[in-house]
Every structure is written in structure tokens, then in C-alpha cells.
């Protein structure tokens, strides 16, 4: 936000300078511009673009893991995938996980950030506490909560006086992974919110106070609108990350598909097809389906943002 205001302030100066320097800039830029992006583009081409194209090609073949002369099978893999109940199940698990995690994390991160922002003492301590779990590897978080949720020896049932078979009952297994994820990843969104809160100019609140606005009004009319952009970002990042969930879920289920296949996620199913049953062609088709899905979510977000901006201005 400050960047845009800085630009507006500096704009007259730029137009003046631009006359003299436009030719300089063009010459300098044209010579070297390509070299600045070249190293990144090389890596990007090798490890993003090429695998994407290769995946597209393999998805039309019956390739196995050894990679020798795959036969062309047309759309068979895609047809099979659309009729594969396990694929739909796994997609459902990833979607269910996303639906639970995203709203919870957004609200929780906001509340934690408000708390940490408004306590005047020991700011670093609250930051550390809420962010700490995010510093653990996903597998460690998974193992830790696998054990906390362990019905006999785990702390969760002990502390709350429950007798819930968290990890072995299909109605709780994915929920346990959701709770683990909340604890493990909320710190990241919390930090984004905290930074955004610190960026709200203090004079807005002072002016509102002079006008007699109470704490609730200040929150509804200043804080929440000023946080609209960051909320959009948090939700978008969380949706993309949650759809791709894999690590903590498989760790909590000892790399299995969970009780009655109830926790197998889309990524897990793709990897099983690729590395366990060695059907690289089929796994590639699912990867492409997944890519299209993620792209659709991202495009939907861009479209929503554009509409909102047009409506707002």
C-alpha cells in the first residue's frame, strides 16, 4: 500500500526524468534483461515445464516405471481415471480436508494475530509460541500427533477424558489429520496477518477514536476492511496447500490408506499408482487432472478478485 502511495508522490519527478533516460533505459535493458532471467528460466524449464509436457505425453501412454518404449493408448488413462472409484474417493478426501482446514485456519490465524498484536508485553514470545509448530517438519508433526491421538497411551484422550479411537475409526481418522494440520500450520497465516496488522496506519484508529468509535466499530470499519487483501491471500495459499496435502496424513497412518481407505488423499493415490503399481502412464494422467484442477482454482480466484476490484471502484 505504501508502495502505491510512494509512486503517486514520485510520479511527476518520473515523467520529467523519463524524457532524458528513456533511451538510456531501453538500451541498458535490452542488452542485459534476458541474462537476468536466464538462470531461473533454465531451472524452470528443466524441472517445471519439461516435466509438465512429459507428463502430458506419458498420460497418453501405458508407460511403466522403467520408461522403455511406452505404447500409445490415447485417452484410455483419462477414461479409466474418471471411472475409478478410488480416484474419486481420494479426491473427495482432499476436498473434505480442504473444506475443513481453510476456514478454520483463516479464523484462527486472524484471532491469534489480533491477540499477539494487542498484548503489549512480550510480543516476541507470542510470535514464537504460535509460529513454533510450523518450524517442525511435517513428518515430525505427523508422528507427534499420531502419538498424541493414540487411544491408549496418547495425551489427547487422557487430557480430555475421552475414549476415542482417533486413528483407527474411519469417522475420526481424517479429522485427526485436520486437527494436526491446524496446530502445525496456523503459524504461517498468523504471521501474515500479524504483519498486515502492523501495517495498518495508527492514525486511522486515532481519528476513529476522536470520532467516538468504540472497539467493535474500529474492528468492523477499519481492521477488517484493511485486512481484506491479506485474507484473500491466506485463503488462496491455504486452498492450494490443502488440496496438495500428503505428508502428515500418511505419516499418521503409517503410510497406509487409513481405516477403510478413509484418509487416502489425491497425491497419495497418484504416488501409489506411480511408485507401487508402477503405472506411470496412469499416474501421469492423474497428475494432469490434478494440475487442471489446481489451475481452475487459481483462475477462479483471479476472476473473483478482478470482479471484486471492478465492483469496488
Amino acid at each position, binding site marked *: *500500500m505504501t508502495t502505491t502511495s510512494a509512486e503517486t508522490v514520485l510520479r511527476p519527478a518520473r515523467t520529467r526524468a523519463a524524457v532524458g533516460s528513456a533511451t538510456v533505459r531501453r538500451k*541498458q535493458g535490452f542488452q*542485459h534483461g*534476458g541474462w537476468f532471467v536466464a538462470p531461473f528460466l533454465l531451472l*524452470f524449464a528443466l524441472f517445471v515445464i519439461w516435466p509438465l509436457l512429459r507428463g502430458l505425453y506419458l498420460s497418453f501412454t501405458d508407460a511403466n516405471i522403467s520408461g522403455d518404449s511406452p505404447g500409445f493408448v490415447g485417452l484410455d488413462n483419462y477414461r479409466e481415471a474418471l471411472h475409478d472409484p478410488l480416484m474419486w474417493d481420494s479426491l473427495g478426501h482432499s476436498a473434505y480436508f480442504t473444506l475443513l482446514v481453510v476456514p478454520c485456519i483463516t479464523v484462527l490465524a486472524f484471532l491469534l494475530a489480533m491477540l499477539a498484536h494487542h498484548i503489549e508485553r512480550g510480543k516476541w514470545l507470542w510470535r514464537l509460541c504460535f509460529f513454533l509448530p510450523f518450524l517442525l517438519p511435517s513428518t515430525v508433526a505427523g508422528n507427534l500427533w499420531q502419538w498424541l491421538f493414540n487411544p491408549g497411551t496418547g495425551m489427547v484422550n*487422557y487430557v480430555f477424558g475421552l475414549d476415542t479411537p482417533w486413528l483407527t475409526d474411519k469417522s475420526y481418522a481424517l479429522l485427526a489429520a485436520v486437527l494436526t494440520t491446524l496446530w502445525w500450520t496456523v503459524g504461517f497465516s498468523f504471521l501474515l496477518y500479524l504483519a498486515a496488522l502492523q501495517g495498518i496506519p495508527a492514525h486511522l484508529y486515532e481519528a476513529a477514536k476522536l470520532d467516538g468509535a468504540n472497539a467493535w466499530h474500529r474492528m468492523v470499519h477499519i481492521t477488517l476492511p484493511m485486512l481484506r*487483501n491479506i485474507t484473500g491471500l491466506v485463503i488462496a495459499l491455504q486452498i492450494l496447500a490443502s488440496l496438495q496435502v500428503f505428508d502428515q496424513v500418511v505419516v499418521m497412518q503409517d503410510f497406509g490408506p487409513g481405516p477403510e481407505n478413509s484418509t487416502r488423499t489425491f497425491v497419495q493415490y497418484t504416488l501409489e499408482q506411480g511408485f507401487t503399481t508402477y503405472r506411470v502412464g496412469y499416474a501421469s494422467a492423474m497428475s494432469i487432472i490434478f494440475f487442471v484442477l489446481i*489451475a481452475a482454482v487459481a483462475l477462479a480466484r483471479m476472476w473473483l478478485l478482478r470482479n471484486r476490484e471492478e465492483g469496488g471502484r
Partner: protein
Amino acid sequence: MTTAAPQARGNGRRAWTPSQIVLTLLGVAVSMVFLAPLAWALFTSLKSETEAVEVPTHWLPEHWTGQAWKALFETGNITNWFVNSLVVSVCVTTVVLVVSALAGYGFARTEFRGKGALMGVVMAGLMVSPAVLGVPLFTTVQQMGMVDTYWGMILPQCAPAAMVYILYKFFQGIPRELEEAAFIDGAGRWRVFFTIIVPLSRPSLSAVGIFTFIASWNNFLWPYMVTNNPDLMTMPNGIATVMNSYGIQWAQLMAGGLMAGLPLIVVFVFFQRQIVAGVAHTGLAGQ
């Protein structure tokens, strides 16, 4: 964004108003919830294996013992994994910082043929990760003969479109006048980049560096796909796959988990001010 620093500093010593007392107590309670699982892990790692699985369970060890920690270093490959994690994360962070700073600047401030189209392609890359394209990425790396090598673990993590995008946004916000003065004095692009842009971007670069390091140190999925050799595994992998495969020894597993988390916790404790400032500065929060 500029108000952040004075605000944070100004809050040093103030009176304990009733609302501050309530908020602080609430903060303590919430922090306990966040820290309890870690405390539980620590206490478990100080129990014997038999005491760890006793029913009913209890918080504090009845017999404090460093047995699990000792066993971890004696029997496990933990030091190996630690070194592997360090090598991989340091390499990934270095390469990502160099490559994405250059690319972010190139896209934000220089002109070259096809820039718009390339930028579009990079934005599309935001949606591709090893989770999305795991199997084709693996076969690509296999083709290059990099399975079970450091190269195979490191290089595919070095093309994060997200970091380029963050730095691109940041560089766009730097006033052009700063550069143009230098151009008129006869400095070239590279000179401007290294003497003006890089020093100005230190907070953003450190945020990008720290987040890359965290992501790489904690990355499980890609190393899991690309290595089978226990000698080459990183911490999260070794702990999840090797330690689990013996049949879980909880005390030892908790000790290993804490070991894996410790380096980042230390990094965060020392750099947290820069991290928050960096998040604010990169414009991540302001978008």
C-alpha cells in the same frame, strides 16, 4: 508498513490495565495449548521405551533417562541425515536467492523480447509443485540420471515461481529514480543491481531466504520420491521412513523429531524480527 517499527518499539513498558491483564492471561493459555505437544514430546524423549508406552499415561517421566537420545546417536544415521539436510537446504537457499533475485529484477525492471509471455509462463508455474506433478517430475529426474544423488534432491527445489513473484512485486515498488540517477552517472544494469537494488532489498531477500530454508529443511515429499538410500536421506525422511520401519520406538522417535526441529527453532529465535519485517516488506502482506 513503515509504522511497524516505531510501534513495536514504543510498546516497551506500559501500565497493566485490566484489559491487558485479561489479554495476557488469554495469551498464556493459548500458548500453553500450542506448546503442550512439544513439551509432551520432550518429556517422552526422556522416558525409557517401556515407560513411554505405559497405560495410563503420565506427563513427567518417573525415571528421567537420556537413553533415547543416546540410542539415537549410537544406532541411527541421525548425524548423516543432519548433514544431508544441511547440505541440501543451504544449497537450495543459495541457488534460489541468486536465481530468483535476478529473475525478479529482470522481470520487474528490464526489457527483453518475449518478457510478457515468459512472465505468464512463470505465473502458471505457481501452480506446479512436486505434489501436483510428482510422477512425471520423477521420471524426468530419472532420465537425467539424478535419482539417489544430491543433485536430484537439490535442483528440482530450485525453481520456485512463488519466490520470483514475491521479489518481482517488491522490485516494482522501488522508485525508478534511484536507478536512473545511477544510469545517468554511467553505471550499467549489473552494477545498479548489485550496488543499489540488492542492499535496498535486504529485508525481502532475508525473508525469501528464511522461508526457502524452512521449506527445504522440512521438505518431505520430494526427497521421499527421489531417494531410497538411507545414507542420502534428509532428517524428515529418515525419521519418517527409517525410524518408523523398525516398529516405532516412541521415546527415540520423539528425540529424533526434536533434533529435526531444533535448527529451525534456533534460526527463528534469532531472526524473528527480520522475518516479520520481511513479510511486511515483501508486500506479501500488503497485496
